[in-house]
């Protein structure tokens, strides 16, 4: 089992890289006089990055396996535009001083609840109408995303500029806006999803073989895929509600994980993708905070890097 040992070695290397990045992020350039204060700011951000990487990394791998295509990202599910629509709507209707905007935990739960309901409605109900053809569902998702964003841009246009300035903060991905209540809440939500989907997650390797093979092996393909799809959407919703629109990250880390580990076992792929995501976020954020002194935003790196990597994938695979 040479390959297995090799993969384990890679995994250990990845973990130690994460550890180094985390230490660098947490303890570099710290002013010893204000150690406690610095920790109180840096620790929640560290946890949020780990959680985000977990949600997006695992969600993307599962999503790609369901679609059987390694070039899609769950940002096609339209959760980003729904998130932006919810926030715009709240600020537009209730004003930026309202409880729903200022109380972070409340706004987080509202985000999550609406996105969860939408996910179940859109991806649960449509799935049956579409007779299990996932691509049609994706197309519907993108259509809805366009619909959401045309409503959003209309509202943003007639919005008071001061309100708009408040809104803008919520719409750019960042790790600054999270407190410990939200962290606990999202950990609970993530665990709940995993527990509910434990059977389906175990079937992932079989699902990858395609509908006919999976059905042959006794798997209720449609039901499993539907549940997994809702699970992925919830994961993306959690990540988006925590940090804002960021899910392009998934494309990079999922594909890097597939390249690095060269296996079809989801047990390894998912963790690989999660760890790569953790490393990318930690290292990126450490660079931004300690080297560029906050002059830029991690969303840019993700967008530009993800974009270039996406084009590279298209050209190197030549099929999708």
């Amino acid at each position: 089992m040479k390959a297995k040992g090799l993969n384990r070695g890679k995994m250990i290397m990845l973990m130690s890289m994460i550890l180094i990045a985390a230490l660098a992020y947490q303890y570099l350039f710290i002013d010893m006089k204000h150690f406690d204060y610095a920790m109180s700011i840096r620790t929640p951000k560290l946890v949020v990055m780990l959680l985000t990487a977990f949600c997006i990394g695992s969600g993307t791998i599962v999503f790609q396996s369901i679609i059987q295509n390694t070039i899609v990202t769950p940002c096609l599910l339209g959760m980003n535009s729904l998130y932006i629509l919810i926030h715009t709507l709240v600020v537009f209707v209730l004003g930026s001083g309202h409880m729903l905007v200022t109380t972070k935990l409340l706004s987080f739960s509202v985000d999550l609840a609406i996105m969860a309901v939408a996910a179940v409605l859109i991806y649960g109900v449509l799935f049956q109408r579409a007779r299990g053809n996932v691509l049609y569902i994706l197309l519907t998702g993108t259509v809805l995303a366009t619909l959401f964003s045309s409503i959003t841009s209309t509202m943003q246009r007639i919005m008071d500029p001061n309100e708009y300035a408040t809104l803008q903060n919520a719409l750019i991905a960042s790790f600054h806006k999270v407190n410990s209540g939200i962290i606990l809440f999202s950990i609970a939500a993530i665990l709940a999803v995993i527990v509910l989907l434990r059977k389906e997650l175990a079937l992932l390797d079989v699902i990858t073989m395609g509908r006919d093979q999976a059905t042959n092996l006794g798997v209720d393909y449609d039901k499993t895929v539907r549940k997994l799809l809702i699970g992925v959407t919830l994961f993306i919703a959690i990540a988006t509600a925590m940090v804002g629109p960021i899910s392009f990250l998934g494309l990079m880390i999922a594909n890097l994980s597939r390249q690095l580990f060269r296996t079809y076992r989801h047990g390894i792929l998912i963790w690989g993708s999660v760890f790569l995501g953790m490393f990318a976020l930690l290292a990126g954020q450490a660079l931004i905070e300690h080297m560029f002194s906050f002059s830029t935003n991690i969303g840019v790196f993700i967008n530009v890097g993800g974009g270039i990597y996406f084009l590279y994938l298209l050209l190197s695979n030549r099929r999708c």
Partner: protein
Amino acid sequence: MKGRYITFLFVVLLLVLSVCSLFIGVINLDPGSILRGDFEQLEILLISRLPRLLAILCTGFGMSVAGLIMQQLCMNKFVSPSTGATISSAQFGILAAMLAFPNSTLADKTVFAFLAAILGTCIFVFFMQKIKFKDVIMVPLVGIMFGNIIGGVTDYLSYKYDMVQALSSWLVGDFSLIIRGRYETVFMVLPLIILAFVFANHFNIVGMGEDFSRNLGVPYNLLLFMGLAIAALITASVVVTVGSVPYLGLIVPNIVSALKGDRMKGNLLDTCLFGAIFVLVCDMIGRVVNYPYELPINLTVGILGSIIFIVMIFGRLNPGGRRRLGMKHGGSSCCQAPDLPEAKGGEV
């Protein structure tokens, strides 16, 4: 000739709706006093109402033709300026013009938008041709992701340089600011549409593939580039004057080809007319619903278009029944004979 009948119907409908559109508005216009030469009424008509109508017509003509050209060239019913990264590239171009020359004129922005749009579209089509797609639907999905990347960069730059609200007038399609003197760029659409009429058959041939068009003596690369350039230039001039209008290039050609079949030359006129009717109706709805205020065209087309598009997608899934209204384009994106001139009569 049922095809002729449809064209005739479209022309009549368009004329009636155009006249209606002239007389919808906060200030009441009265045909009698215009004919008598009431100066004030004439002024309203010439400064505000007529330019608006012309802009609507040009947008409807232009965007649907741009969509039709792109669909024919790529031989895929889901490609259009909004799913092929053309609109988002044009917006990026406008932002680039605003950043590079802070006091840039509309002409500068048009040039930038055009260059960016053509570059983005060509990159997209280049990638599309290099890749084997397992399913037709992957093409628009890849296009949308590509558009998302460009849009992400635009968002970030506009956020960083505090241009978000300034840029939003080009992100949201809206006819309410169209008055004489600031919409004339949109007329650039008209010669381009004529060009599209002239080369319609050539685009059809190019859509059938490189070898096929070489065989028929059609310079493939030149015409492919020309078609994309026409589509990009139309899109850029509409985005610069009106703003982006989603779906138009996607839905209109599909509905028309469901009615009339797939031959580009025969469909071009109907696509133009139907596109203009669609925009006119959406604009009138937007003006009437919230009277005396109005909803931007972006919103009305967005909502109506989404509904129609979803019906189309699911219509395609259910065999028989509503299938005609969907895309009759099953299977791979390159193997279908695009031109069935005689088959179209019986379909309607």
